């Protein structure tokens, strides 16, 4: 396939073979983000258009349908793309104004919306990039944007800082306890560890190690068998640990690094000081194994009760995500506040939250009994107060479920049959619930403790 006549370069689009969930062959359109040459064989990093980034991967040339190759159209595309900087899933490379040979490693310039010219290296093999660290530095400083991200929150929606480095996964595989995880996104683990076939993490302190031997050695010294925080909830095998991002920086940072592998919008730009981390664990004879976590700003100006939330892939789709969400709202209930997750939500986040909100709200609506024969009624504010779900989320959920209708001059809630049935079925599957009685949590007033 690597016909010398055609050079497949970054920015090219072409159908790439991939298996779908039914293990059938598909040829979705993909974009070449990077090319690398290992042992004389070329590998292409592809992003499937309209698929989530997490499915991006290195593919061999034989998976490329080179006949349908589309070269990046610089003239046509640049102006249109100019208005949408870093818009996704388009790659910045499409914005590149190419002047010389396409495989040149000369820095090229990308026009960003803010009018500044940002120089990026045209996609190179990742290894190559690593080696020219000084160049990288100067490149960064030359770009002259002193823009630092806002200091609140944990997520970025502004992708102007997105470059080819962060758009590509850099860790191949992570071994964590019993599990091997395939990272979905870039995570700023030490650069020298990114070339490893497997990155080893200590299951309990989440320290990153380059080899199994190192992990073995580490385990002789690490006596943690649970997250290094206070256990504030335990029911059955499920426990929650609270970790202060300021007091336990090492663990918090390790957790964030791990979480970044699975959270596209998470930013690790700033330190972990203003966050609390609630780590959900499952206990067995080896200890308290991390299942997922959510972080939370000690003080949120925007009613966020969750910053980042993640169920580790091995535990996904088993109800743990909902448990995490439920726990976050339990904390809000104790605090006497309503809360909402920090935006933007990921696709999985949206689904999980919608699902949780739906179930929670429907649960309330179904429970409502009509007293003295009148039709039961409830206000949105009441729902919000009961559930600690922010009003806007209640409304959006009611809308999404199509429950809210206008009838005879007033809004009504209609519980259709399939809604009720669907809800009952879903609730039957939902075994894992948070028991508020098992929560031992006293909210702290962080504003009185000085900033963070």
């Amino acid at each position, binding site marked *: 396939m690597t016909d010398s006549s055609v050079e497949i370069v970054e920015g090219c689009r072409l159908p790439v073979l991939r298996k779908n*969930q*039914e293990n059938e062959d598909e040829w979705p359109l993909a974009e070449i983000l990077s090319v690398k040459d290992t042992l004389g064989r070329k590998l292409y990093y592809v992003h499937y258009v*309209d*698929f*989530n980034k997490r*499915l991006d991967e290195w593919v061999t040339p034989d998976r490329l349908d080179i006949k349908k190759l589309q070269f990046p159209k610089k003239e046509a595309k640049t102006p249109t793309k100019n208005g949408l900087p870093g818009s*996704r*899933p388009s790659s910045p490379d499409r914005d590149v104004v190419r002047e010389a040979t396409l495989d040149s490693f000369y820095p090229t310039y990308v026009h960003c919306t803010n009018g500044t010219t940002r120089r990026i290296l045209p996609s190179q093999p990742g290894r190559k990039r690593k080696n020219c660290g000084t160049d990288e530095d100067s490149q960064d400083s030359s770009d002259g944007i002193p823009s630092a991200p806002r*200091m609140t929150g944990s997520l970025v929606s502004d992708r102007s*800082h997105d*470059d080819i480095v962060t758009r590509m996964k850099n860790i191949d*595989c992570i*071994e964590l*306890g*019993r599990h091997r995880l395939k990272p979905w996104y870039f995570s*700023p*683990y*030490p*650069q*020298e560890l990114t070339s490893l076939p497997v990155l080893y993490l200590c299951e309990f302190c989440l320290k990153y*190690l380059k*080899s199994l031997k*190192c*992990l073995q*050695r580490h*385990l*002789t010294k690490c*006596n*943690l068998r*649970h997250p290094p925080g*206070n256990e504030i909830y335990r029911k059955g095998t499920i426990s929650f640990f609270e970790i202060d991002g300021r007091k336990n920086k090492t663990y918090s940072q390790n957790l964030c690094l791990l979480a970044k592998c699975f959270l596209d919008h998470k930013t690790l*730009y*700033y*330190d972990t000081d203003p966050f609390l981390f609630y780590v959900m664990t499952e206990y067995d004879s080896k200890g*308290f194994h991390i299942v997922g976590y959510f972080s939370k700003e000690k003080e949120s100006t925007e009613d966020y009760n969750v910053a980042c939330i993640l169920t580790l*892939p091995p535990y996904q*789709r088993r109800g743990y995500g909902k448990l995490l969400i439920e726990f976050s709202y339990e904390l809000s209930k104790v605090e006497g506040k309503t809360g909402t*997750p920090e935006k*933007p939500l990921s*696709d999985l986040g*949206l*689904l999980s939250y919608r699902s949780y909100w739906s179930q929670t709200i429907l649960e309330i609506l179904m429970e409502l009994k009509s007293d003295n024969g009148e039709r*039961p009624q*409830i*206000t*949105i504010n009441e729902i919000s107060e009961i559930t600690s779900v922010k009003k806007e989320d209640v*409304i*959006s959920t009611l*809308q999404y479920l199509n429950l809210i*209708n*206008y*009838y005879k001059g007033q*809004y*009504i*809630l*209609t*519980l259709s049959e399939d809604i009720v049935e*669907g809800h009952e*079925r879903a609730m039957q599957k939902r075994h894992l619930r948070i028991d508020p009685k098992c929560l031992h949590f006293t909210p702290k007033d962080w504003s009185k403790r000085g*900033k963070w």
Partner: protein
Amino acid sequence: MSKLSFRARALDAAKPLPIYRNGDIPDLNDCVSINRAVPQMPTGMEKEEELEHHLQRAICAQQVFREKKESMVIPVPEAEGNINYYDRLYKGDFRQPKQLIHIQPFGLDSEQPDYDMDSEDETLLNRLNRKMELKPLQFEIMVDRLEKASANQLVTLQEAKLLLNEDDYLLKSVYDYWVRKRKNCRGPSLIPQVKQEKRDGSTNNDAYVAFRRRTEKMQTRKNRKNDEASYEKMLKLRREFSRTVTILEMIKKREKSKRELLHLTLEVVEKRYQLGDFSGDVLSEVSVPLAEKTVYPAPICLPNGNRHKTENKIKSHKSVPKHHPHNVTVKVEPHFDFVRPHKKYTRRPKLETLRPPSRPERPHTVNNADIKQYDFHSSGEEDYLLSPSSEPDEENDPDGAFVFRRRVGCSYLAPLSEQSSSSPVGLAGTNAMWQRNALTALSVPRRCVGVARRRLGRGGRLLLDRSSADLDRALRHLDPGAFCPFVAPSDAFPLNTDTHMDTCTNAHDPAPFRTHPQRSLAQLLTDIQACRWRYFQTRSLHQNQKEESGKKALQEDDRRGGGPIVTSSSRNAVLGGVQCSSSMTGCSLIVENKLVFRNTASLDTVSKTLDSASAQFAASAVVSTSNKESKSHSPAVNGILPNSGSRQTKFSSSGSSSARLSGASSKPLPAVPQSLPHGHGPLSSVSAVSPAHTHHNSARPCAPSPPALKLATIASSLDRVPKVTPASAIDSIGRDKHEPERLALNGIAETTVAMEVT
């Protein structure tokens, strides 16, 4: 559809929404159409992502089926299967505690090395283990330290040696290995770490830099605009405070020295009174050679105000050296108040009884001059140490207009050691006066010249200052032969060929004295003298050696209490001194005791002032003290004790004159050479007090002195009643001696504390 004509009201979150179920849902058509009137809430996702294929598919599936179908879930990269070696990796079981886990803050890390050995290291370890034992942990600690010590540059082998403290071979092997490995390492460190931000902002866009510190602005409160400014102010304030502390520290030292000076002055007066030196002859004689000694950088300039007052108040005393200060002892006391602040009284009721009400305290002005100069300005709170020191004062007057003055910018070399033996500098004020006047005999025209003193002239000549005393004639009649035993050895020294001096350097040799009989008066005299010499010899010599810098002397004087500077060498010296004195009277013993006591005293003092220099001194003092203690006692047991004992008992009453050992020793021979005790008596305890100061010092004696003075008076009047001390707490000689010092010590402690607080 027609219902669309009127607008649906905005959704009111506070308004109750009736709930319709299943069958009783009214008119769905209406509802659906109107639903649009409710503004669509954003999903909270990014627009592009929201359109992603799998999400849309999943959402649709959910909308349609009300539950997720297996095929409709959003695909994620699949994780691989189980890790079969997990159980081997994570060894041991962990039992869930019954109670919720609560971690102790800061109890997490047991300081384990961050470095983890890899298989490459293991190979090295195995190789090394053939020759020596090297545990993995030990290796890791080594590498860990090396790594953490090399920030930008690798540590050198030398540094590594300091760092690791391991066997040389082992260290070398590990070090070499580490250097090699480090050079091949692709990361910045063998311990992988997340890239840190650089402060210059060059890493602002580096994707691998994480966990940047939030800018400081965020850490201060928003509502305080001046935070940065106030922070700077705080810093400045802190700096200034610390400077103040330094200044106060210096003032403290100065005041201590002043106190000492006063004390010494008092002693001088006291002794002179004992001596009957009303004409000031003795004093002037004594003070002449001291002019050479330049201990202090600057001549002493008394602050005018203070001095004026003093002078005005006590005119009679001002002229003490020249005139007849008969009344000194009596009148002195009231003038103490000049320098004594109120504090004193409250602290030391004992002394208070002796003193009339105090005068108001002088304002405490601190300026540069104060620090540099020796003045009486803010004297006050300090107690008096018996240890005298302030020789510089003596320089003031003897030379009058020709006083040696230190010039700024000039560096003055320390006196040579040989010279110093004749002109003891510094701390050992007592020495100085010991040395000053002595019963002297010339070796060449073998005769006793009476009380005289040797000093080294500026050109290196030896001068002999004779003091005229009433007893001169009697002394002259003394058989010089009586001095023979020690004249001889002293003659052996070139320095002393012409005269036999109390300062003879060979006095180390105790032999002649040991054999001395002590029956006759002359012998007794000799003895005394010998003892005096002995004592002096050793002390002055070594002290002088130690005491190169006069400044230092001033500062440390109070601490040392005029005692020896205690270092290993001086310890030896002291030891020598003790041995010498072993053949002599108990006075030497007493001296030793005194030394010991002073050392301990100084120790106490020092321990309260926290500066490192003094702490060090204190430490050495402890050592030497114990040393000396044992030493000082042993000689007493072998043989000397009879002498000393008898003498002590004999003169205990008089000797109780506040530890003036010379006084004690001299008392036994009151009948014949009255002048003898006086000759050196005052000198023994009062050191560097210039005539100039004597007068005004006498005008304002200080705290411990009233009892001392009284004692001295009584002693000199040969009143042997044991009950001399007004402060009745003093019951034994030993105690007598220490008492004033202890008081002084207390005073220091208090003062010190006070100063520290400020």
